[in-house]
């Protein structure tokens, strides 16, 4: 009898333990080591003279992942006793982890929601990125499209309203009857969100066949001569040659709507894209700032790391495929961590 009782108690306890795991535990504070390690070091000025030590943990957006990994490697070269641990998992996860204190820095590749700031998110813009519309290089109207570009209102009619269904309608040449094979991202992410924002809506409003991931959309457009998709700029262009990936062309935005791609609207190569973004000709969105998010103002080691990415770290942006923030913007962001 007694034993039966014991078994029942055992089961209840185990069940309770299991169930407790299911309840939202954003309140649980997992103390990250670097905070402790750093708060024990004296004032910030003396940190520099001392050797940095500890672990920095990051999680979040796929779009920022390659850059954060590179920054982590370079930072570790400078400070061998610092370990930088980067995990990808989506911007939402990065935000939740940062606010919940599970990681030091969350990587977020979309705009920060005011409700997230209220919860204690402290965003620092670290780099820029852009989403560009892509077509197959063998598109029968490719020449035409690259010459005239496409207006925002046309993109809205293609992606949101679905009223434009052929390439002819998109170019204002009804004699072209080729259908537009529309692709969008199936997974919720920063890129589709920013693309939808450019068109004034949310990701859920984007029409088209949903394909998983940036490489997925790129592959779909690469195979489909009538395909239209959108990709992160560092996926659509080869970062070494500066040209679009074979089989792909990037559609220029006809920003001033004069029906022709002006020299400063040209985004056919990496250099021209960067120039257009820096000049502000490239619409914003789909150009976007990518953020590091901390819970409250960063201190100690993580502040040191973020400051470094905003100063020396910026020189690695180009080769990994990101775009520098403007000088003023950089100074502004630096002030946030001083």
């Amino acid at each position: 009898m007694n034993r039966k009782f014991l078994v029942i108690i055992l089961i209840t306890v185990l069940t309770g333990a299991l169930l407790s795991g299911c309840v939202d535990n954003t309140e649980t504070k997992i103390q990250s080591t670097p905070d402790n390690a750093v708060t024990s070091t004296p004032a910030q000025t003396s940190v520099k003279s001392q050797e940095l030590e500890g672990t920095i943990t990051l999680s979040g957006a796929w779009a920022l992942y390659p850059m954060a990994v590179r920054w982590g490697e370079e930072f570790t070269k400078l400070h061998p006793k610092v370990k930088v641990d980067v995990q990808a998992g989506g911007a939402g996860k990065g935000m939740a982890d940062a606010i919940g204190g599970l990681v030091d820095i969350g990587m977020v590749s979309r705009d920060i929601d005011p409700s997230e700031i209220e919860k204690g998110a402290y965003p620092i813009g670290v780099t820029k990125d852009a989403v560009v519309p892509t077509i197959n290089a063998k598109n029968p109207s490719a020449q035409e499209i690259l010459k005239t570009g496409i207006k925002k209102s046309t993109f809205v009619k293609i992606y949101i309203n679905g009223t434009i269904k052929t390439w002819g309608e998109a170019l204002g040449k009804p004699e072209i009857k080729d259908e537009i094979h529309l692709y969008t991202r199936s997974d919720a992410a920063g890129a589709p969100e920013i693309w939808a924002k450019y068109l004034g809506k949310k990701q859920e409003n984007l029409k088209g066949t949903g394909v998983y991931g940036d490489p997925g959309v790129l592959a779909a457009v690469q195979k489909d001569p009538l395909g239209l998709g959108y990709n992160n700029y560092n996926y659509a262009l080869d970062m070494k040659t500066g040209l679009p990936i074979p089989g792909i062309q990037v559609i220029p935005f006809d920003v001033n709507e004069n029906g022709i791609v002006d020299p400063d609207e040209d985004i056919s190569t990496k250099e021209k894209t960067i120039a257009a973004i820096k000049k502000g000709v490239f619409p914003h969105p789909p150009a976007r700032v990518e953020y590091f998010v901390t819970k409250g103002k960063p201190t100690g080691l993580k502040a040191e790391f973020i400051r470094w990415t905003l100063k020396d770290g910026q020189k690695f942006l180009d080769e990994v495929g990101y775009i520098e923030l403007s000088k003023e913007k950089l100074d502004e962001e630096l002030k946030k961590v001083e």
Partner: protein
Amino acid sequence: MFSRKLKDIIAGRLMLAAAVLSSMLVIIIAVALYLRAKPILDVKSIAELLLGSTWMPFQGEFGFFPFILGTLYVTLIAMVIAVPLSILSAIYLAEYAHENVRTKVLPVIDLLAGIPPVVYGVWGVLAVVPVISYIAPVIGNLGIPFLTVKGYSTGYSMLAGGIVLAIMVFPIIISISEQVLRAVPFDMREASLSLGATRWQTIKHAVIRIAYPGIAAAIILGFSRAIGETMAVLMVVGNVPNIPSSVFDSAYPLTALIANNYGEMMSIPLYDSALLLAALILMLVILFFTVAARLILIRIERRMAHG
């Protein structure tokens, strides 16, 4: 002496605890999902959620109907393709094939079961999707119901999902059915053949009749594998939350919905509970089919026992 008995008791109790705990896991998971899904159930009626067909979370529209249909259709297509093919191959391997062939073919089929779903997905994108986009206009214009093409098909379709799933399900159905068929006592075949029946008649009337419950169980196992598969389907199915009317249309299964959005949408409250509700619905759908399958199996067995 005492320690021997004590060990026996402890072992017995521990195993009881383990068994109870693992059988309770289903309930624990269901309860946890329900608790997390509750915020949306408080705001929306169940009918509205299950039968609504608009999915616009940011505008407060959460209709799961396209996703439920997507899951069922894709699984159905997979089973329509997989069941006849795998049972015929199982019969061949068990009844006709030479020992040499069987020992070579079976390991290869088992190997199929070990390939990770992502690999199937990539293969589907590279091989199945282009073939479908190529044949879709040809078949689509014949005007056969469920095989029509509205406008164009990119190849990312329910059919692509069904084919990829069918191939993932093959090894399960084939290897189990083959074993079941081989377990049928040889006397049955001898008796049938001695009455002058041909090989096919023997298989049809004697062997399959006896192996029936086992084959049904194999199909059920394959079905539950198919309905829960996520990654491979998600990569080829097109993920458009519409009510599909043709196998060349895109669909959006529940598993894909969860996988596509979970990590990203956690900070938006109602979205989060909608996704967990999707998980709960998926679980209930699978539970429903598993129970139904069990009941059918019991009936078959009972009928066979009565002759």
